[in-house]
Structure formats: C-alpha cells, structure tokens
C-alpha cells in the first residue's frame, strides 16, 4: 500500500502515472495547467478547433497518444488528476498545494516531473515589454492562436529557434529574422553527433532550417534591442563576418535552449552537480531517477532530453518506484538503452548550440540582468567586493535572483557575470538555493481557513 504523488503532467508525468496505474497503484497527479500535456504538447482550451496535426506537426501522433492515454486513465478512475494547482512546498511527506484553495496532500513517494523553462541570456534592452521567451511565442501560437507581434525577430539558439520560426511562418506571422548565436562550425561538429544518435530527427531539423532560407543567420552577435515606450523597435546585430545589421521589429523572442527547473527537487532535498555538457546545475540521481528516500525525478527537470526522452524517463522513474515498493514492474533495460541514445543526441545538441557564456561575461555594465527588478550587470559586479564570488551571497546583497521569478531567468547569466569578473568557472560560483514557496503566493491564502487535507490514495 503506497501513496504516490506526481508533480507535473507533461510527457514524463503522464508516462509515470500510466506505468504506476499499470501496476495497480492509484497515483495523484498535480499540475499547473488546466489540461494535461505539459508545455511541448500543451493543449488549447476546450472549444478550440485546430487538430493536433496543425498544433504539433510531425509530433501529432505522440501528442494524441499521450493526451489519450492520460484522459483514459482519469476517465477510468485509475489516477486522480488535480489540475490548476502549484506545489509550493514539500515537507515530511506533505505537499503544500495552492490552486483556487489551499490543499495539503500526504504521500509516501514523490515523482517530480517539473520540466524546464527557456534558458535566457540577457541582451541590452530585453527588459522592454514585447520581448518574450521563445517558449512564450510557441505557447501563444499553439494554445491561443495568436502571434506576439506583427514583425518578429527570433534570437538565441537551440532546436526551438528553427522550429518556432517555421511554425510562425506557416501560421501566417511575419518573421523578419532568425538570429542564431551558434557558429556554423559548432553546429556542424555537433550535428554529426546528433545525426549518429537520431538521424531522422536531425534530418527533420535540417529540413526546417533550409526552409527558412535567407532570414536565418548563424554565428551572429546580438548587440542590443532598440526600444521606445511602446516596446522593441529593432534588433541590432552583427553577422558572422562582423557586419552590423539593424532589423526592424515590434517583438523579439529570445531563448538559448532550456534550463531544467530544479526548484521542487531542491526543496525535496535532491543534491545538484554542475553538468559540463548542459552547462547548468542538474539534480543528482541514479540511472532510474532515484534522487533520495522516496524521491524520483524524470523528464527535462532532471536531464534536458526533450519530449521523447521525458516519456522514457517517466516510465523509468515509475519502475524505480515500483522496484522500491517490491511490486512487479516492467523491465527497465530496453528503456535505459533508448535513454542512453537520447542522452548522446542531447549532448551533441548542446555542443551544436552552445550557451554564449563568454558573451554574457562581457555584457556592458548597463545591461539589465534581473528582468524582474531591473538589476544591471554593473550593480552585480559592484556587489562582488562585498559579497565575494558566491551566487547566494551576491543574491542577498545585489538582488540578482531575488525577484519574483526567483532566479529562473537570471541565475545562469548572473553566474557567468560573477565567474568572468572573478576569474573562475561558473561551477565554482555556486547554485542559487531554492526556497519555498516555489511560486509567489498571496499571504491571504495562509490566513484563510484551514486547508483541505487529502491523502494520495492508497493501494
């Protein structure tokens, strides 16, 4: 008899729930979205009419299968789905959850499938309204049928850059330029490794890239986003040969691949290591995702392997959970072999589309690093003589990472600034410790009546 709680209903959370239900357990799945699917397979509100083929392109069949499987498990009463809720804190086997009301969910085992956010590098001017993450532009298109501007510049690097540009064009949006900071040489070297691990996926990406034609530029340097009171008016950038360009726009989308969201893993007690390949802090877990007593991690929140990898990791984490409970479980070996291939692909991709660490370290003093509170690179550099080159002390004194995004969009860039200024690698600068609440929450929620207590159902 065991009560298993799953946080997150993306590809990893859904497959974990399915695997547990297949073994006769009844997991509870908490998720922030109104409908299960996660970000990449995020579903529009009920009543929208575009079919999955239109929303998810080549991945439509996978999206259909995931959504269908989850909806069936809920309809058959084999899992409990608690949508529209955030897990804010975890302690002593209780998840403190806030939706329309406050809830406390008792559990014996916890599977965290919290996913990732866009990884952001600051560009001078990016604090303007009308600058968005690449993920935001994709969500807007998929789930609302809108473009976030009339003349769009997309910049950064990673697979989403090309994919999003193609999706926006196909939907009728005007994409003025796609500016990839990854040099062509890195893309070719990494691309070979990607093609060896997953030839079809690599080919599909290449075909999208070719389809973009002359609006795509590799190896660019982003200088600044020109703005007026209405928002962005142009992106100023240099091409690979050093020639300067100014591309008129009213929306800029930025993103450098993904950053694992380890907030809840940290609060749950996971340890973290600096990962050289992914150039960020990632939670420590065994091959099946065990990260502590009764704690399992899966999906992009553990390793940035993408949606296919997340489906595998979700099953594997659930198998680890079943093993620990002494229950019959599927054989993990074939899944682990597939995961190893996903990992080779993802590591090659990280080489192909590198994080621009050196460019961030050189950002001018007046560049905003913390978009929440307008803290600039110079403010952070001036903090270092007082704080020393340690991210948490620099946060306490300089407020980079203290704002309401809780460091999700500034901490990796902040670490590069501290690292460059102090002549040490970002791994030695340290990781910002996560603290509850994992999302800002109104104090009123804690002053109101006692929470509903639920038990993640037994057996």
């Amino acid at each position, binding site marked *: 008899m065991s009560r298993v709680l799953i946080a997150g209903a993306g590809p990893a959370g859904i497959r974990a729930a399915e695997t547990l239900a297949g073994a006769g357990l009844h997991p509870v799945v908490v998720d922030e979205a109104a409908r299960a699917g996660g970000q990449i397979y995020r579903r529009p509100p009920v009543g929208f009419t575009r079919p999955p083929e239109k929303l998810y392109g080549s991945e439509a069949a996978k999206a259909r299968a995931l959504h269908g499987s989850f909806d069936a498990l809920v309809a058959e009463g084999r899992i409990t789905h608690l949508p529209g809720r955030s897990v804010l804190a975890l302690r002593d086997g209780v998840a403190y959850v806030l939706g329309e009301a406050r809830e406390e969910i008792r559990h014996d085992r916890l599977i965290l499938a919290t996913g990732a956010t866009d990884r952001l590098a600051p560009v001078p001017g990016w604090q303007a*309204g009308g600058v968005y993450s690449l993920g935001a532009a994709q969500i807007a298109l998929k789930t609302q*049928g809108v473009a976030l501007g009339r003349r769009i510049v997309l910049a950064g690097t990673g697979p989403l850059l090309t994919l999003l540009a193609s999706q926006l064009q196909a939907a009728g949006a005007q994409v003025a330029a796609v500016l990839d900071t990854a040099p062509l040489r890195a893309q070719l070297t990494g691309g070979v490794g990607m093609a060896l691990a997953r030839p079809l996926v690599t080919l599909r990406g290449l075909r999208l890239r070719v389809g973009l034609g002359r609006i795509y530029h590799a190896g660019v340097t982003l200088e600044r986003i020109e703005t007026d009171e209405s928002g962005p008016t142009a992106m100023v950038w240099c091409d690979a040969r050093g020639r300067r360009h100014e591309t008129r726009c009213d929306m800029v989308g930025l993103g450098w691949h993904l950053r694992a969201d380890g907030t809840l893993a940290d609060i749950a007690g996971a340890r973290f290591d600096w990962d050289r390949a992914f150039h960020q802090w990632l939670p420590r877990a065994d091959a099946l995702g065990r990260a502590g007593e009764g704690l399992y991690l899966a999906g992009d929140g553990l390793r940035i392997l993408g949606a296919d990898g997340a489906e595998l990791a979700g099953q594997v984490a659930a198998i680890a959970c079943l093993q620990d409970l002494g229950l019959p479980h599927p054989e993990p070996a074939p899944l682990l072999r597939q995961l190893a291939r996903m990992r080779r692909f993802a590591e090659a991709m990280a080489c192909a589309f590198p994080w621009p660490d050196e460019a961030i370290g050189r950002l001018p003093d007046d560049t905003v690093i913390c978009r929440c509170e307008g803290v600039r690179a110079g403010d952070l550099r001036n903090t270092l003589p007082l704080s020393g080159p340690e991210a948490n002390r620099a946060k306490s004194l300089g407020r980079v990472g203290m704002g309401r995004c809780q460091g999700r969009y500034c901490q990796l860039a902040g670490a590069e600034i501290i690292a460059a200024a102090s002549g040490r690698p970002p791994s030695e600068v340290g990781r910002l410790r996560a603290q509850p609440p994992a999302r800002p929450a109104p104090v009123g929620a804690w002053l109101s009546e006692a929470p509903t207590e639920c038990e993640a159902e037994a057996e």
Partner: protein
Amino acid sequence: MSAAGFSTGRLVRLAETARAPVGFTFDGEALTGLEGDTVLTAILLSRGALRASEFGPEARAGFCLMGACQDCWVWQEEGPRLRACSTPLAEGMRLLSAAPAQWPARSA
C-alpha cells in the same frame, strides 16, 4: 475594433477566431475578448502592455507565458491580482494595470 482578426494591440490573431465574445473592462474601458482567451491574450489584443514596471520606465507585457516568470500579474478592481498568462478570461472581469486606490482594503 472587433474581437476577431483586426487588433489594435500588441498581439495578432492568426487562428481560432470563431469563438463567442466575452466582455470585460481594463482600466475602466470596455473591451471584448473571445471565449478561451487568457486574460493576457484578451488585454494585449487591444493594448500594448499589461502594467508598468515597478523598477524601470518600461512597460510589461508578460514574458514566459508558462507561469514561471511572474511578469504578467494584473490587478482586479476588487483587489487580488491575477497571473494573466494562466487565467482564463471570464465575462464581466474588471481588470486594472495598477493596484486599486483602496488597497489593501481595510475592514473594520
């Protein structure tokens, strides 16, 4: 300005325009969105921004649209704030770009 198609704001509708209209107000002005719009979508189809930044001169219009950055909070006339990117628009919502004058409301 019509709710579908043409937009006077930051966003442009590209698809899914055959939905029922939903009336709401933003800073006292009557606006129309469509059923299934988020608060962010509905406001930014008619306006350029959701609110002013507390820490700089620039306006704010959301950033991540997945509930992680907290850039898109707007106020309601009755007080509490909403995360505009993840709150569905509802008929009769009375939204504000800044805190109402009487906030926090003092009760006897």
